[in-house]
């Protein structure tokens, strides 16, 4: 319809000129002046028609140039936008993937640490600090008991050695008795010698026996003196041995008491350290659990990348469509022979059809996204 009208507009000026010229000629009854006026009008009409056609051609050229510039504009701009969006999407995906891998690594290490900590901290294999302290106490008590037993054995031995002193006393008494017997024997020998002298030649043999008895008595006295000396030395040795043993026993007793005291202090210190270590380990376990939960939540939050990536993909695909839409628009204008409004409806409809999320639809319609309205929903079929 528009095309028919344009063609009509193109020919109306020359037709009117010719018609005017013919009219003038007719009115002047084909007089020279009338013919001249008619011819002039016809020429003016034809020239006007040519001028109108040129104007319309110029307008069409300008329209075509405009549409062409629009197409060039979109063809140059859209791919750049698209590439930038895709590049951003890739960068974000790579960064988030790397980040989530790091978080996974942290979560895995925390799991291992917690597992080891539980095995040791809860004494799964009897290796808790409290168990080690109790076992150490038991073993050290055993050592102290051994020392005490050894000291008791030594005391028993000392008692027996002290008992020897009684035998020494008896021996000394016996030596004294031997001394008296020797004196009596000597005295008898002296008397026998005197009596032998009174007997004269008859007592000469008896005097010899008496002298031998005196000699034996002196030997007995000397032997008794040596025995007495040895017994005195033995008695003295026993006394000094007992004295040294008693001193040693006192020292050992004091050493054992000091050892027990030191062991008690060391174990108390160790127990205190173990308790504080155990408290710190408990705190670390709690903190590790907390950190692990936080890491888990961070990983959940990183799912935003998937959503953002999808939105960017949808927008990019829509931008990619822009040059084709502009080209269609140009074709339509050319066919219509006039500029038409460039409407976004079609492209927007296409974009809307690609949406997967309620948020995308809400943003598209300039509505407030319903926060987390369907996130995590589970439907079983």
């Amino acid at each position: 319809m528009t095309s028919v009208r344009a063609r009509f507009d193109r020919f109306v000026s020359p037709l009117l000129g010719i018609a005017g010229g013919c009219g003038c000629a007719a009115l002047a009854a084909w007089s020279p002046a009338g013919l001249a006026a008619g011819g002039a009008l016809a020429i003016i009409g034809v020239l006007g028609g040519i001028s109108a056609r040129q104007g319309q051609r110029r307008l069409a050229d300008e329209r075509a140039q405009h549409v062409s510039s629009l197409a060039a504009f979109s063809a140059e701009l859209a791919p750049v936008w698209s590439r930038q969006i895709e590049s951003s999407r890739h960068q974000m995906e790579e960064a988030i993937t790397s980040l989530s891998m790091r978080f996974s690594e942290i979560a895995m290490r925390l799991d291992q640490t917690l597992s080891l900590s539980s095995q040791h901290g809860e004494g799964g294999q009897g290796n808790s600090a409290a168990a080690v302290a109790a076992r150490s106490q038991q073993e050290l008590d055993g050592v102290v008991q051994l020392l005490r037993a050894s000291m008791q054995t030594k005391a028993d031995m000392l008692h027996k050695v002290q008992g020897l002193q009684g035998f020494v006393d008896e021996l000394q008494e016996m030596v004294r008795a031997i001394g008296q017997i020797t004196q009596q024997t000597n005295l008898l020998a002296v008397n026998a010698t005197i009596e032998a002298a009174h007997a004269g030649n008859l007592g000469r043999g008896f005097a010899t026996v008496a002298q031998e008895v005196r000699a034996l008595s002196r030997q007995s006295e000397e032997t008794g003196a040596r025995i007495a000396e040895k017994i005195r030395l033995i008695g003295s040795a026993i006394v000094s041995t007992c004295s040294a043993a008693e001193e040693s026993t006192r020292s050992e007793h004091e050493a054992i008491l000091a050892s027990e005291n030191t062991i008690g202090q060391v174990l108390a210190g160790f127990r205190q350290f173990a308790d504080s270590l155990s408290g710190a380990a408990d705190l670390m376990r709690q903190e590790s659990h907390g950190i692990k939960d936080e890491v888990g939540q961070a990983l959940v939050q990183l799912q935003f990348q998937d959503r953002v990536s999808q939105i960017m993909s949808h927008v990019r695909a829509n931008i990619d469509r822009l040059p084709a839409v502009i080209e269609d628009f140009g074709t339509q204008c050319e066919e219509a022979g006039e500029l038409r409004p460039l409407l976004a409806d079609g492209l927007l409809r296409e974009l809307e059809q690609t949406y997967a999320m309620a948020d995308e639809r809400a943003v598209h319609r300039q509505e407030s996204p319903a926060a987390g309205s369907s996130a995590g929903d589970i439907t079983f079929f």
Partner: protein
Amino acid sequence: MAKTVLIVDDSASVRQVVGIALRGAGYDVIEGRDGQDALNQLTGQKVHLIISDVNMPQMDGITFLKHVKQLPAYRFTPVIMLTTENQEAKKREGQLAGAKAWVVKPFQPAQLLSAIERLVPP
């Protein structure tokens, strides 16, 4: 013996998150980057459950699901669709294709594990 779950998603970070949750719960995990990649991995080994995204390049989740249902070895393997799609029409499409559950992202690992345990009792 640990059960095996196939995760199909074009987003590496989502595969990571699902993988961590499942491995932490004692499952073995294999992964596919899209429907076609996942189909290539279904070569006869036992898979107890499939978790698939819907919108993916090469082959989308619904098409993948339809292919899985054609494979004799995996015809009865339960499939959970894990997607940002929340439109009822899409859910119905998934249901008709044979999905057993539809989980909308973002998800909490505990929710997903509970859905898995419902479909594949321990």
